[in-house]
């Protein structure tokens, strides 16, 4: 297998790992970390696959990944602030046992 294919497959594995964490973990910090792992997986696929195989070195995926990392950092910051606020308001860093979604207003 080519090195590029190996990196892309590793990226896919990270994506799956991130999806699993996002679905299974209840703690919001772990959920945010899972999203970050998922994001790293996507970035690895982007760089690993790159452009068409015969086109030679290509700077565009790198530019995309740098932009993507900036987006991920901002999103994580917003998520952490939300998590802290939610923890101080509800006492728990999880989304479980919210006000019942179909129930009357709390």
């Amino acid at each position, binding site marked *: 297998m080519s090195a590029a294919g190996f990196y892309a497959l590793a990226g896919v594995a990270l994506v799956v790992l991130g999806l699993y964490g996002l679905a299974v973990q209840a703690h919001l910090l772990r959920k945010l970390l899972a*999203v970050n792992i998922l994001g790293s997986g996507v970035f690895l696929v*982007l760089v690993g696959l790159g452009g068409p195989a015969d086109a030679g070195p290509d700077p565009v995926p790198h530019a*995309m990944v740098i*932009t993507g990392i900036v*987006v991920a950092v901002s999103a994580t910051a917003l998520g952490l602030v939300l998590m802290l606020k939610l923890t101080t308001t509800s006492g728990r860093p999880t989304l479980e046992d*919210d006000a019942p979604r179909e129930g009357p*207003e709390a």
Partner: protein
Amino acid sequence: MSPVLLPDLPWEALLILLPLTGAAAGALWPPAARAIGLLTTAGGLLLLAGLGTAVADAQTLRHAVGGWGAPLGIELRADALSLVFLTATALVGLGVAVYADSYFERSQARGFWPLWLFLLGALNALFLSADLFNLYVTLELMGLAAVALTAFSGGRAALSGAMRYLLATLLGSLVYLLGVALLYHATGTLDFSLLTQRLEAGPAARTALGLMGAGLALKTALFPFHFWLPPAHSSAPAPVSALLSALVVKASFYILVRLWLELFAPLSGLEGAGTGEVLGWLGMAAILWGSWQALRQPRVKLLVAYSTVAQIGYLFLAFPLLTAAGLPDPAAWRAVLWLVLAHALAKAAMFLAAGNLLRFGGHDRIPDLDCVAQRLPLTVAAFALAGISIAGLPPTGGFIGKWLLLEAALLQGRWDLVAVMLLGGLLAAGYVFKVVGHFFTPAAAGHAARPVPAAMEWTALTLAILALLLGLAPAWLLPWLDLAVGPGPAEAVP
């Protein structure tokens, strides 16, 4: 366009730069945030008029930002399809901005304006983007601004709704980006027009379509990915709910429409019909499930939020409708664009009216609405008019949209779609009239009432009347929609 009347400005770039500059200025200088916010939102409408005349002249406008065109630079594109979504954004945005000016306390308002202008800039940029990666960036910019606005009031329900929304929106964008990676590997380009030339049918294109479709469906809250929408949209402040339901969910839908009409449907012809069918089934399920849930809700805002889940379903009914050649059916897409406009106006009016009820009585429990028909007649009129449009009764914008869609489905003998559309209309009438009925009855326990500023009542009513007027303007609007969906896919056929 007469060059004497209108200078040849880069309207697309200005439509993005103006709100972003306003957002930065408002954040840096809070005392002026309100003035900047209102002026910028109104100025956007003027820029849109300029862009509209230019597009009417040239059909498709392209602008290379900073003189760097595709494939290396960022290119902006404006055509009739972007114009439909930009118009909805500008109209709803102006109404909500005027409403928010009275809704928020002075201290809260300082936080609201920069976030709203960021959201407006992101929406405009998204509708004007011509490459896949730029769409990802604008999606994220829009998502972050929307999440911050959702959490804005700081209550527990709002915070947990915003958190759920953030996780869903991040997951959606990243899955979309994975699809972009595959397309880039297959074609070596991100630009839409180059992609249409280079993309070939095959496993890469199919997987990319699946990933991007799933990510965008999650962000559009298509059933069964709608779980995040009702908590977020019902716990946000009323003006924010209006923006989220009317505009933000439409943005990811716009990308899906672009991808489908320009890239995937012409590419695979009848081969893509399977994906279209799946999207159509999910749309039908969304209509039935969302309407049924809306009917069961005890609170006005939750009811309106579930109604959004149902109405999003209608937008997806055009995907399975293909012409004999296996291409997207222009008649069905025209209907969907009409529904996008009608739903944006009517749903914004409904959420604003719900905000008035909440302000007036301090709650939005449907059974405890206390004779509001006599006490808030304008709000009640706004809710009822918007509800009629949502239910698709004549002579409203919602009626025309659903009529056109019904016609397209009938012509192709899709009785399943017809049946679901009719049933969804009945259920929608049911949940609208459930609320309207309680407007007239006295509640068991009376309560104190707070005054509602006139501006809040009038903006809700104005948006509802616009949704109504949309139903009276087919002759004027239909040529535009034809321009948006008609020749596009046909041209792309090799």
